[in-house]
């Protein structure tokens, strides 16, 4: 309590409060809009009798959102798990072992280059590959695409966190006779949990929100994901605001659940204790 009365503490509180309000306001406006009839939305009235029709439209008729959610979950979770494993190993290898300088520079450059390419570069080739492999219009095609989309990002962020792991821990483990893999899983990973949690959240979210690849690699609700369903409401003749806002809120919910769950891991405490004493 005493802390918050210092000028620094006051500044901190004001900043957080303003940020929270600014963040929540558009979300609340969207939430309220999602319960309005389209007629009231475009008429700009403040209040109108709330309706569930916008949400109902997601699941009935051609909404198919349950199916889309399933696909989104499979594609996002699947690609995130693969990426976490592959990127952690790669980041660990790059930061903790001796590599020729030229090699690390090349690998970093390659990762960056892939990240820099506009995604449309991959649309055509991935379309052909997925059709040839028979995974077109299924979440598997999307897992393939998301691995490419998010792997460089994951490696970059994780490199950063792995580099911060204190040397002494690993040396201690080596003295105790642990294998390299054992050191990795039992010593290093627990310390880098905040970084892995953050990376996992981000790769999940980028996969969850991806539109371009979902659009190109799927064509029926068998493979389509939530963003495609959302885009179906932004039509040429009318943007169906009611359905669009309802689907945007709906699309955010699983991601929120994940973040609430995972943000617990982005906390101090795991880093302490390991080095002391």
């Amino acid at each position, binding site marked *: 309590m005493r802390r918050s009365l210092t000028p620094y503490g006051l500044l901190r509180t004001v900043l957080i409060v303003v940020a929270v309000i600014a963040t929540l306001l558009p979300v609340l406006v969207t939430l309220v809009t999602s319960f309005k009839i389209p007629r009231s939305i475009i*008429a700009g009235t403040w209040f109108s009798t709330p309706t569930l029709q916008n949400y109902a439209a997601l699941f009935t008729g051609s909404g198919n959102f349950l199916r889309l959610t399933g696909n989104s979950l499979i594609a996002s979770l699947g690609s995130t798990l693969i990426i976490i494993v592959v990127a952690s190993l790669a980041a660990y290898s790059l930061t903790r072992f001796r590599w020729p300088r030229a090699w690390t520079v090349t690998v970093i450059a390659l990762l960056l280059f892939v990240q820099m390419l506009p995604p449309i570069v991959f649309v055509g080739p991935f*379309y*052909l590959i997925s059709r040839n492999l028979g995974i077109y219009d299924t979440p598997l095609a999307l897992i393939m695409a998301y691995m490419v989309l998010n792997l460089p990002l994951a490696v970059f962020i994780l490199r950063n966190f792995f580099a911060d792991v204190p040397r002494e821990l690993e040396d201690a483990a080596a003295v105790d006779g642990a294998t390299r893999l054992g050191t990795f899983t039992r010593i290093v990973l627990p310390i880098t949990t905040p970084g892995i949690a953050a990376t996992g959240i981000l790769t999940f979210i980028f996969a969850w929100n991806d539109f371009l690849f979902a659009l190109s690699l799927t064509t029926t609700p068998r493979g389509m994901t939530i963003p495609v369903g959302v*885009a179906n409401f932004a039509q040429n003749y*009318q943007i169906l605001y009611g359905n669009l806002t309802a689907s945007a809120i709906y699309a955010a919910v699983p991601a929120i659940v994940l973040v609430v769950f995972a943000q617990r891991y982005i906390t101090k405490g795991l880093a302490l204790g390991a080095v002391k004493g």
Partner: protein
Amino acid sequence: MNQNHRTQAGPRFRRWGIALLLTAAVCGVASAQSQPPITILINTSPWLPSFKSLVSQYEKETGNKVNLNVVPFSAMIQKSLNAVSSKTSEYDILNLNEQWYSQFYSGGLVTPIKDIDPSYTLPKQVIEYAYADRWDPKVGASTKNGEVYGFPINGNIQLLFYRKDLFAKHNLQPPKTWADVEKDAKILNDPPNVYGFVTRTSPPNYNFQAWLHSYGGTIISLDQSTGTWSVNIDNAAAHQALDEWLKLTWSYSPPNYANMGQSDEISLMASGHLAMFIVASAAESNFTNPNTSSVVGKIGAAVTPGPTADARAPTSGIWVMGIPHNLPKAKQLAAAKFLEWAMTKPAELAYAKAGGVPVRQDVYEELAKDPKYGWWMQAVADSTPYIKAQVRIKETPQILSVIDRVLGQAVIKKMTADQALKQAATEIHQIMVKGGYKMAPLSSQ
């Protein structure tokens, strides 16, 4: 004994025989109509539900299976291109928009019907929208002599929608000329409750063409006798059209006139804040649905105005259905059979009654008398003689983006109208020269 023999073998033989005959008959009938299942690529739109009912009717009548792949509008061109670039197209019918179908016609990406079903001719009653369904590879344009490459499925043309209750209140008739539009807009303009008139500025090219063509102007034109193209966007007619369009844009619109998209202007009308505007006929469903419209029953439709009552020019913005080139013959035939069926009068009538925008003149004339549809179908029926085409060459999207850009600059007054058209003419001329067309020299105004 003999009788016994007969009761066993005879009737059994007869039963088998009858069964065989029946089977053969059924197979015979079925094989005449039965086709492999086909897949159609289509986008979410106001006419999707009616298209779905058209499809289920086809399935009921013929027993053939049709699958619909429904995707967002923004995905249509990408998915169509992907499909025709692969070894075998995943779709058997593509829905192509007027603004990009030329790419498919000229690239040979869809097969003309003559190569699939040589005996077929398009019924006379099908409106061809200035030959949007045809393509002449020699000339590189949609002309009367071209082969049929695509079937019109969505007969969108521009109409003038107006608040007939407000017009009645002020004793006004729906305007026939641009001068009438100005007069009526001025009377009805009552911001911020009701705005007199809006134009579509985001993007503007389609809306602007209603004015351009009404003054007799065109963006480009082809002299078929010499095979020479000319760029006309800098002519007197175009200048008059742009001046009028800009005047209407600036005078009676809300302050966000510079970013008025199609959805925005439809929302303005549906929420009761707009007196009249020009938009494609497919917008009508937004005004009759109490879920989206605050002005149900108050909207009327008329033919788009012109400088004089005879010089109107509703511009087409249709969709055609094409059959990809990279399909086995059996699939192409199945797709063709569906399209041919869809062009018949009963099919089109049912399509229109389910909410679609039909393409047969006789259907429009029949439904124009119908109280439920007549309010807008009469206007469409009346518009048919005036229909003008958009630019239809392979470079159309490039040309239209030039128009969009210069018009946008003119709307925000970063360029004068004269500068805008001059710039457009220069750039479009360059585009076409680069495309290898025989060009008449740009006349300097």
